[in-house]
């Protein structure tokens, strides 16, 4: 058979491997190595390099964060797979200009940041990778101030061993 030796799953599943290696590399700043091109203008490179929540937020916004129950964050309690964790953020706060998602236990804390134009509803959904069990922090910029909420997502590996 033509693809007998082209087993796409040998030796280990790539996504699982990815998560494992994210784990192994946690704490290392590997981002930026091997970059072939300069960052797209406007992309907050500095913030994406940070490995702590405080540093990432400082680089991105430079202002303090307060927790607020006016920000809603929908994440699973147990991620079905750390490679694809659905995340939804919403808020009742007014004049929202941006939403940022942080995963403190990932090698680099900042996962994604969304800038909202006028007329856009203050809510966004996306899918994130998580290296291991970690809080997910959603930060909403409203009237120039930062409000956040944090929820833990449990990430476990798949059942079958290596």
């Amino acid at each position, binding site marked *: 058979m033509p693809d007998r030796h082209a087993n796409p799953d040998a030796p280990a599943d790539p996504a699982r491997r990815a998560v494992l290696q994210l784990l192994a590399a946690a704490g290392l700043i590997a981002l930026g190595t091997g970059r072939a091109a300069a960052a797209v203008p406007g992309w907050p490179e500095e913030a994406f390099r940070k490995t702590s929540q405080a540093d990432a937020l400082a680089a991105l916004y430079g202002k303090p964060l307060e927790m607020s129950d006016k920000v809603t964050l929908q994440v699973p309690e*147990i991620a079905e797979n750390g490679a694809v964790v659905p995340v939804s953020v919403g808020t009742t706060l007014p004049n929202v200009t941006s939403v940022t998602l942080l995963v403190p236990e990932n090698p680099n804390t900042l996962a994604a940041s969304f800038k909202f134009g006028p007329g856009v509803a203050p809510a966004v959904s996306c899918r994130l990778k998580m290296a291991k*069990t970690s809080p997910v922090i959603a930060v909403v910029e409203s009237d120039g101030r930062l409000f956040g909420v944090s929820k833990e997502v*449990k990430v*476990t*590996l798949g*059942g*079958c*061993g*290596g």
Partner: protein
Amino acid sequence: MTAPRAATRRALLAAALLLGGWAAGAHGQDVAAGRALAFDRAKGNCLACHSMAGGDVPSNVGPELAGMRARFPDREVLRAIIGDEEARNPQTVMPAFGRNLILDDREIEAVIDFLYTL
């Protein structure tokens, strides 16, 4: 190679353990090694099916591993379950760690030492 008679096998095992223990030194090391084996996905991978302290996963294929010394006062019973549960319960989904050479005798003893701390 047919299986050696039970008594001989026990004797060999005891000898291996004596010598092994002598070489490895402290008993605490066996517990640590047993824990590592139990958690290692390529070895015991106990967490795949059982939840247990320190495991942080919700597996429920097998019973939770807790109160092991009370549940299994006889070490031999626990050894038999890990080694070849199919011999006791032909329809079990528990792999035969000993019979199928997933863990060797010393590794099984270390896992038991660890399980007795739960």
